[in-house]
C-alpha cells in the first residue's frame, strides 16, 4: 500500500480565486492511501518544495500528488523535489487544477468539485505507480547531412567548426544546389556565386567534412545517437582519386545530345561532363543514357584522351555503411512542371520560360554568357512579361495551395536587373499580391516600381498565344483598371511554384520523419522547435521544411547545426522511461503494433517464452526503448492487451477513470 501525500497549490489567486483549496485538501485526505494533505500559496517556490520534502520524510511518503498547474509547467520541478527527498521521481503525479479547472470555470462550487475529482484521479493513479528508471544510450559523434545545397553546406560547416565529423550526401554530381544556378540575390543584388562558391570550397577542404556527391541514402536504421546508414555512391565511371579535373575528356566527347541540367536544358552538354566550372568535386560524370560507349560499345574517346587514366567504364555503385548520432535533412526544393498550366504556353512556345531558366539566361556563366536573348531566335527581347503565382496559391487542385514565398522578390529582382542592363526593354509583372515581408524587401520592390519603372499589373494572365509573327500575346486582366488587356511581348517568364524535392518523400519514410501533404517535413513544434523533426535525432534545414529564401535558409541551417552540436556534445542520452513494453507471455506476434508505430520502435524477435508449464520459442514484439516516444498507439492496437505503457498502464488509466466516475454520495 502506498503512503501518499497531497499538496494543493493556490498559485496565488490563479487557483485559489475559483477553487476552494482548503476544501480540496480536506476532501482528498480521505482518499485511499492518502496519509497527508496540505495546501500552500506557491507550491513551486522554495518554501513550497521544502514543505513537500519534509512531508516525505516526516510521513514516510512513497508517492505524492501535486494539485497545481499543467504538468508541462512544473512536473519536472516536482519530480526533482521528490527525487531530492529520496523517492523515485516517477512516483509524482500532477492534477492540473489550473489550466483545466480554475482558469476555465467561474463558479467556485463547481470548480472546487472538479478539482477534487481531478485530485482523486491522480491519487488513484499514484496508488498503482511503480518506480521507473531512465535508460541511457551512447552518442555517435558524427552527423549526416542529406543534401548539399546552401542549407546542407551551412549546417555541415557549422557542425564541423564545432569539432564534430560531418558527412554530406548529395545526389547530384556536385554540391551547390539551386543557389549555384542563381545570378544575383535579393535584396542586395550580390552575386550568388561569389558568396556560395567559397563556402563550397570550404566544405570540400574542411578536415571534419566528408563529401559523398552523386550519392544517395539507401537505408536508415537505428535511433537518436545511433543511426546506421547505408549510402549508395553511384558510379561516375571516373575515378575521383585519379582525376585531375583537366576537362580533356569533356571536350573530346562526340555525344552532344545531353541537355545541360545546370542551364535548365537551355543548351547541350557531352555525355561525360562537369556540371559547371566551379563544381565540387571538379570531377566529371558519365551520363550512360547519352554515352555512345554505353549504348553501342564503340567510342571510348574520353578514356583514350584521359592523361591520368581516370575514366573507368567498369565502375560499379559502391555502398558505404556509417554510424551517425544525428541526421540533418536538407533536401531543398524544385519547381513544379507546368503540364497543368498550358494556358501559359510553356510547352508550345520556346520564349515562354520559367524564372529559373531566366536566371540562367541572365547569368554570365549561362548559355548566352549573360547576354539576355530569347531562346527561339537569340534576339534580345524588347518587351518581357513576368507572370507570378504560376501554380502557387492555387486552390483548383492543379498546383500548390501554399505561397512559394520567394517569387515576388526574385521577380522584382529579374525585372530590375533587366531594366538596369537593358533600359529600352519594357517590363510588365502580373501579380495577385506582392508579398515583401523581409528586411529591406519592400524597399527593394518599391525601387523596381519607382526607380526602374517596372509596370506592375494586379491581375492574372488567362492566355499566352502567338500572333504568327514571332510575338507572344499575353492576355490578362488588370483588376485595378477593371479591364482586359493584351500585351505584345517577346518573352514571357513564369514564376512556377516551388515544391519539395522529389527525394523527400522516400527519405521521410526511411527516417520515419513526418511530412505534411505537400511533402514538406514537419517540425516538432511550429513555433518553439522549428528545426527539429518530431523523430528524435532528425533535424531540418532549409526549404525541405517549407518555402524559404536564402537568408532564412542559412539562419535555419545554423539553428539546425546548433541543435546537432547540442546533441553530439552529450556522451550519453537519457531516455524517457515511460515507454511501451510487450508482455511476451501474452503477445501473439500478430504485428498490429508494429504497423501503427509511427516511430518504427517495434521489432520482433524469436524469444524463449516460459508460460507456466509450456516452454517454447515464439515470435514476440520487442520495443526499442530509445526510439519509443510513449505515444501509446500500440497499446490500443494490441488485440490481446500484451502492450502496455510504463507509467501509463491500462490499469492506471482505468483506475483514473473509475475515480472520476465514482459516485460521491453527495
Amino acid at each position, binding site marked *: 500500500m502506498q503512503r501518499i501525500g497531497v499538496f494543493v497549490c493556490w498559485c496565488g489567486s490563479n487557483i485559489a480565486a475559483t477553487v476552494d483549496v482548503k476544501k480540496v485538501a480536506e476532501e482528498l485526505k480521505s482518499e485511499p492511501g492518502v496519509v497527508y494533505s496540505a495546501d500552500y500559496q506557491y507550491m513551486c517556490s522554495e518554501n513550497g518544495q521544502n514543505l513537500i520534502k519534509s512531508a516525505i520524510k516526516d510521513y514516510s511518503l512513497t508517492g505524492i500528488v501535486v494539485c497545481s498547474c499543467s504538468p508541462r509547467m512544473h512536473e519536472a520541478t516536482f519530480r526533482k523535489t521528490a527525487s531530492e527527498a529520496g523517492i523515485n521521481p516517477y512516483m509524482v503525479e500532477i492534477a492540473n487544477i489550473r489550466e483545466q479547472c480554475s482558469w476555465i470555470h467561474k463558479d467556485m462550487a463547481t470548480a472546487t468539485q472538479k478539482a477534487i475529482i481531478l485530485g482523486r484521479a491522480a491519487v488513484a493513479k499514484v496508488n498503482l505507480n511503480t518506480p521507473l528508471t531512465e535508460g541511457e544510450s551512447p552518442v555517435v559523434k558524427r552527423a549526416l547531412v542529406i543534401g548539399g545545397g546552401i542549407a546542407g553546406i551551412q549546417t555541415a560547416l557549422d557542425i564541423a567548426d564545432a569539432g564534430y565529423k560531418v558527412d554530406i550526401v548529395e545526389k547530384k554530381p556536385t554540391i551547390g544546389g539551386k543557389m549555384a544556378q542563381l545570378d544575383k540575390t535579393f535584396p542586395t543584388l550580390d552575386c550568388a556565386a561569389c558568396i556560395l562558391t567559397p563556402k563550397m570550397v570550404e566544405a570540400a577542404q574542411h578536415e571534419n567534412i566528408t563529401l559523398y556527391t552523386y550519392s544517395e541514402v539507401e537505408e536508415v536504421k537505428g535511433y537518436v545517437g545511433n543511426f546506421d546508414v547505408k549510402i549508395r555512391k553511384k558510379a561516375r565511371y571516373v575515378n575521383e582519386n585519379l582525376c585531375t579535373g583537366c576537362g580533356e575528356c569533356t571536350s573530346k566527347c562526340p555525344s552532344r545530345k545531353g541537355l545541360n541540367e545546370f542551364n535548365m536544358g537551355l543548351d547541350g552538354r557531352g555525355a561525360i561532363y562537369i556540371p559547371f566550372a566551379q563544381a565540387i568535386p571538379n570531377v566529371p560524370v558519365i551520363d550512360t543514357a547519352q554515352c555512345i560507349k554505353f549504348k553501342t560499345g564503340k567510342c571510348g574517346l574520353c578514356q583514350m584522351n584521359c592523361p591520368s587514366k581516370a575514366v573507368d567504364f567498369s565502375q560499379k555503385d559502391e555502398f558505404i555503411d556509417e554510424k551517425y548520432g544525428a541526421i540533418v535533412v536538407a533536401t531543398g526544393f524544385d519547381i513544379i512542371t507546368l503540364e497543368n*498550366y*498550358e*494556358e501559359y*504556353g510553356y*510547352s*508550345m512556345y520556346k520564349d515562354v520560360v520559367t524564372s529559373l531558366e531566366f536566371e540562367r539566361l541572365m547569368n554570365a556563366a549561362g548559355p548566352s554568357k549573360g547576354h539576355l536573348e530569347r531562346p527561339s531566335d537569340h534576339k534580345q527581347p524588347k518587351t518581357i512579361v513576368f507572370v507570378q503565382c504560376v501554380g502557387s496559391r492555387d486552390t483548383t487542385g492543379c498546383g500548390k495551395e501554399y505561397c512559394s514565398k520567394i517569387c515576388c522578390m526574385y521577380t522584382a529582382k529579374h525585372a530590375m536587373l533587366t531594366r538596369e542592363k537593358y533600359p529600352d526593354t519594357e517590363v510588365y509583372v502580373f501579380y495577385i499580391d506582392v508579398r515583401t515581408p523581409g528586411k529591406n524587401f519592400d524597399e527593394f520592390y518599391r525601387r523596381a516600381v519607382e526607380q526602374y519603372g517596372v509596370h506592375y499589373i494586379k491581375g492574372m494572365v488567362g*492566355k499566352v*498565344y*502567338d*500572333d*504568327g*509573327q514571332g510575338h507572344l500575346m499575353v492576355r490578362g486582366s488588370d483588376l485595378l483598371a477593371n479591364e482586359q488587356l493584351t500585351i505584345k511581348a517577346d518573352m514571357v517568364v513564369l514564376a512556377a511554384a516551388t515544391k519539395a524535392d522529389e527525394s523527400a518523400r522516400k527519405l521521410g519514410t526511411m527516417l520515419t520523419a513526418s511530412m505534411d501533404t505537400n511533402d514538406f517535413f514537419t517540425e516538432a513544434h511550429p513555433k518553439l522547435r522549428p528545426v527539429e523533426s518530431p523523430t528524435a535525432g532528425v533535424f531540418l534545414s532549409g526549404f525541405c521544411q517549407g518555402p524559404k529564401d536564402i537568408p532564412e535558409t542559412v539562419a535555419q541551417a545554423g539553428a539546425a547545426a546548433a541543435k546537432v552540436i547540442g546533441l553530439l556534445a552529450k556522451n550519453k542520452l537519457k531516455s524517457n522511461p515511460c515507454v511501451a513494453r510487450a508482455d511476451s507471455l501474452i503477445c501473439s506476434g500478430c504485428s498490429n503494433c508494429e504497423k501503427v508505430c509511427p516511430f518504427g520502435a517495434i521489432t520482433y524477435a524469436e524469444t524463449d517464452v516460459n508460460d507456466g508449464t509450456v516452454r517454447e520459442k515464439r515470435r514476440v514484439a520487442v520495443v526499442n526503448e530509445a526510439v519509443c516516444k510513449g505515444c501509446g498507439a500500440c497499446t490500443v492496437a494490441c488485440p490481446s492487451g500484451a502492450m502496455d505503457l510504463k507509467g501509463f498502464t491500462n490499469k492506471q488509466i482505468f483506475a483514473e477513470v473509475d475515480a472520476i466516475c465514482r459516485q460521491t454520495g453527495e
Partner: protein
Amino acid sequence: MEYDYYPGCTLKNKASHLDICARKAAEKLGAAMTEIPEWQCCGGVYPMAGNETAQKLPAVRALNEAKSRGRDLLCVCSACYHVLKSVNYDMANNATVITKANTYLENDPWYKGETRVLHYLEMLRDDIGFEKVKKCVEKPLTGKKIASYYGCLLLRPSKIMKFDNPENPSVMESLIKALGGEPVIDPFRNECCGGYVSAEDTELTEKKVRDIVESVKAHGGEMIVTACPLCMYNLKKYGDLPVKYFTELICEAFGIEVLEDD
C-alpha cells in the same frame, strides 16, 4: 467494334454531312454504328441548368438504352456529346439527380452513369488508333494546311469532359496528320466562337470569329475543320475561310464520295 450511336437533331438536317460522313468513314474503319431507337433531342443547352432534373431526362434515356445493350454511346455532334457526358457525370455523382431521374423514369435497375460516352474523335484516337486511320487513306491531303477548331463544348469543363488537354488539345491535329495534311496550330482553337450569342449580339460573335479566322490565316492555315454544327454556322457566317466538318475531311482522304445533297 460496335457502338450505339446518338446522332442528335442537328445532324438530321443542317449538319447532315457531319452524320453521313461519320457513318461512311466508320464503315471503312470497321466500326459499326447502330442508331439507338427512339432517341430524343439531347436538350441542347437546357440540361446544363444545375437545379433542373426534368431537362436531363432525354439524355438519361439514351444513356440507359446504351447500358441495356452493354455498348458504348458514340456521339459526333459536340453539343450532344457535351450534354450526354455532363448528364452522365451527374448520374454518377449527384445523388439528387440520380434519385429524381431514376424515380421518374421508373428505371429498374437504377442508371448510375455506367455507360461510356465517347466522341467519334475519341473512338479514332483510343479505340481504332490513328495508325489504322492512316492505312485507310487513299487520297492523302498532302500539302493542305488545315487548322482544327475545337471550340468550348468538347473541352470544357475539362474535369468532366476529359476529352483532351483543354489548353493545348491535339486529337484533331493527330487526325489531320494521319490523313496526310499539315496541321496548323491556331492558338484560338479552344476559344469560344460566340455560340448562341450570335442570335442576339452579332457584333460580339463577329469579333470572336474574326479573331479566330485571322489567327488561322496568320499561322498559314487555308482551311478550318470543326466538330460542332454551331461553330460551323458562326465560322461560315462571319469568316472567309472554307470550313469543313472533320468527318467530311476523313471521307475526302478516304476517297469516299459524298454528294452535296446527300
